[in-house]
């Protein structure tokens, strides 16, 4: 009946009990608050089943913030452990718990924070920037969101029931095989990544079609904002890379479930094959995360420099070059596999070449600022921080692309420092910049600037203090993922890194204060024009927050930076209102997500009846949706006119 689920699964150490308990408590408080204010109906009707890209985007961000908090706590626990666990002392975390924490930290940050914030912002901004009313497949968008959200829950469920994988986020076999990891941990990993990966793949298809098929009249490819170009490239990467992950994880699953011998160390299986395939997805994934951030900066820098973007064409070619190159560098993740000098040299050189288009972009942004009227707002602070940190991160990457050097620092803390420099400096700073920049568009008032800047400085200084020592430790020979070490010379640097983590946490505290202050000052900072920053692209041409149909009249574009041109030439759209065709909300995404969760939960715990129930549920949800005819509605001209004259709804 319960497969391998028994009361044994509930046994943990006291730290895990505390984490699990506080999580249940948090969930309960949220549940009670929503019930007390009778908001379940509103939530269900206007948010959970919504197909409006703006609402889905906000839901992505809410989930990602919860995940970011979770990932930061993991990070803090690891820094704390490594600051203490030297020589005689073994710290406060057991080895197996520590392993689960670094695995969960990686999975959370890559799949649910990086992907989540980017898909959140893409959802919010992209349709507005191309002058569309929604994405190409609005219901599919909702399905993607729920697959993302439900798969993320496994990271929390594993705190209470059983345990998470202890293999590291990349989950290499044979360690991840049934022989060495018989428990549920790896299965939790498999299904978390599998389901969220399928969600991302569907989103990739959705946005690719949105960009290529739904641009407003006049917006040719070469008039698209660079953010849209970056997302186009990102979605091409998603569509090409994620199926590899799906197939690879499916094969690791069959290895564990029905005893196939694909990635096993015996029966002729090949563990290295998994590692190759994993990184054939994994390296493009890095660019899937960072290209949207590049796009965000390409929007922010021109607006706050009051100049058009320097080198639009070279920017586009740089994006395209990165897209192509990102598929032929994967082997640099395991030069130590011993593929031979020529293979390693090829991938090393390709890795060095990929730094060139990235450098082009950095210089383009700097030249955009050159002789501009620069406004030092919070988004610009994040941008300047990004330039410094990301460039150091990129150069250390080039350093590691030399195979001979990589043999020395492979899997050391030098590597950990490198990818945190590029991912935090690139993706997270980019997201913070974009969040502050587009916040007034979707909420209706600007964010508090002074707390934002203080938060930036704590993040910036805290980040350097936390991660610079790791470069040095890597050279000293400290490897990643250690719950204990015996070299006492390392300890001072680990303590410094922990202090840096504390500074970052203070920065996060200031970000919370920033949000509170923003809410408090909302009347003063209200954006009545829809264009608080003197923007250049179409999203600023509609009201803040935009109506659910985005634009009353379909915009027509004649140049790059169309809104800037409209403002300068004084020509605004003078068309008549038109009938608007909108999709209706649908609950199918929620049900598919829920039943996917139930199905995979059954598989993880070997409760086959539950897995079958979930599978039938998914099919039933799809079939029901298949025969629904009432999927859309029309807003009449008069209704649009009434809504527009009433002001933003």
């Amino acid at each position, binding site marked *: 009946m319960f497969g391998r689920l028994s009361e044994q699964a509930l046994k943990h150490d006291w730290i895990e009990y505390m984490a699990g308990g506080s999580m249940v408590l948090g969930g309960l408080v949220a549940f009670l608050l929503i019930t007390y204010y009778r908001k379940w109906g509103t939530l269900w009707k206007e948010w959970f089943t919504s197909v409006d890209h703006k609402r889905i985007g906000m839901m992505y961000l809410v989930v990602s913030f919860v995940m970011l908090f979770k990932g930061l706590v993991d990070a803090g626990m690891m820094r704390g452990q490594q600051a203490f666990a030297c020589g005689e002392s073994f710290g406060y975390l057991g080895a197996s718990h520590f392993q689960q924490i670094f695995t969960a930290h990686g999975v959370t940050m890559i799949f649910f924070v990086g992907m989540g914030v980017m898909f959140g912002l893409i959802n919010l901004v992209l349709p507005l920037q191309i002058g569309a009313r929604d994405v*190409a*497949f609005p219901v599919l968008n909702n399905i993607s969101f729920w697959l993302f959200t439900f798969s993320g829950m496994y990271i929390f469920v594993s705190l209470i029931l059983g345990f998470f994988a202890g293999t590291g986020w990349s989950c290499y076999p044979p360690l991840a095989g049934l022989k060495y990891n018989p428990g549920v941990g790896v299965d939790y990993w498999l299904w978390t990544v599998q389901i969220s990966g399928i969600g991302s*793949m569907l989103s*990739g*298809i*959705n946005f*690719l*079609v949105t960009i*290529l*098929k*739904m641009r407003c009249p006049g917006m040719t490819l070469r008039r698209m904002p660079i953010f849209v170009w970056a997302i186009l490239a990102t979605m091409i990467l998603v*569509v*090409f890379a*994620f*199926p*590899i992950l*799906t*197939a*690879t994880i*499916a*094969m690791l699953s*069959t*290895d564990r479930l*029905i*005893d*196939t*011998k*694909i990635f*096993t160390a015996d*029966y*002729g*299986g*090949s563990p290295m*094959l998994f590692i190759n*395939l994993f990184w054939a997805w994994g390296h493009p994934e890095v660019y899937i995360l960072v290209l949207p951030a590049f796009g965000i900066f390409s929007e922010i820098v021109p607006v706050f420099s009051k100049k058009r973007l320097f080198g639009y064409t070279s920017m586009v070619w740089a994006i395209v070059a990165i897209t192509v190159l990102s598929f032929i560098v994967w082997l640099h993740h395991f030069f130590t596999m011993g593929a031979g000098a020529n293979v390693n040299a090829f991938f090393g050189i390709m890795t060095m070449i990929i730094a060139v288009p990235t450098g082009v972009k950095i210089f383009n942004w700097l030249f955009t600022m050159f002789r501009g009227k620069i406004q030092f707002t919070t988004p610009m602070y994040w941008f300047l921080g990004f330039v410094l940190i990301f460039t150091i991160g990129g150069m250390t990457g080039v350093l590691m692309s030399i195979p001979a050097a990589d043999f020395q620092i492979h899997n050391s803390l030098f590597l950990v420092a490198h990818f945190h420099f590029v991912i935090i400096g690139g993706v997270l700073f980019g997201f913070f910049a974009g969040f502050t920049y587009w916040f007034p568009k979707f909420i209706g008032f600007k964010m508090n600037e002074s707390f934002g800047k203080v938060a930036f400085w704590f993040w910036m200084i805290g980040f350097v203090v936390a991660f610079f020592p790791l470069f040095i430790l890597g050279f000293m020979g400290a490897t990643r993922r250690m719950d204990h070490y015996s070299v006492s010379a390392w300890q001072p640097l680990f303590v410094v890194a922990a202090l840096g983590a504390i500074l970052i946490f203070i920065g996060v505290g200031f970000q919370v204060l920033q949000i509170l202050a923003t809410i408090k000052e909302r009347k003063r900072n209200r954006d009545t024009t829809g264009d608080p920053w003197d923007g250049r692209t179409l999203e600023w041409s509609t009201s803040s927050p935009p109506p659910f149909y985005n634009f009353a009249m379909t915009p027509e574009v004649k140049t790059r930076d169309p809104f800037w041109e409209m403002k300068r030439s004084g020509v605004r759209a003078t068309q008549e209102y038109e009938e608007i*065709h909108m999709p209706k909300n649908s609950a199918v995404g929620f049900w598919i997500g829920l039943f996917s969760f139930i199905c995979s939960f059954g598989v993880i715990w070997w409760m086959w009846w539950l897995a079958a129930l979930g599978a039938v549920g998914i099919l039933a949800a799809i*079939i029901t949706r*298949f*025969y629904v005819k009432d999927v*859309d509605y029309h807003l009449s001209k008069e209704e649009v006119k009434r809504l527009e004259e009433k002001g933003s709804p």
Partner: protein
Amino acid sequence: MKAFPDMYHDQYSRTIFGFWMYLLTDFILFGTFFAVYAVLRKSVLGGTPPDVLFELPYTLWQTLILLGSAYTIGMGGAFAHRKQASKAMLFFGITFLLGVLFLGLEGRELARFIASGNSWQNSAFLSSFFTLVGTHGAHILFGLLWMVLILISVAQDGITAQTLRRLTCMRMFWQFLNILWVFVFTIVYLMGEIQ
């Protein structure tokens, strides 16, 4: 598409393009399985080698049946575009039966392998073979289920903008599985004979 003024603006072309993108992802999924097969196909571990295991004439019949269904589904699509619902349903129905026949033959072959001690658990070669061919078979199975759903909606509504769109996607999906099978036949079965 002039015959069908589409109430969804250009939803026809949008959906078809989206479906092409989906097929692209599926192609890469299969590409991964093919790559794995290519790497592991020599790992027979003393078991029956492919040239002894496979019976080419049997697989040739499978191939001919599936390629025949490519013709019938094409006819079905042509009639659908001419709004001749009953003829379209007839040819889609024949395609369905050919698909069932193909799947039956494939199931029988895999069952024979398992019965003769060549199950997926026995070597990496067999694992990758079962994964590749099994995934193709699973796609055929889902295609058949989907075809039933679509034919029901065609029976209810006739050829409308919506059902035509669905029939076209179905046809693309089926031809895609056909092309994949040509690769499977060539790379797995034919090349298995000459190793």
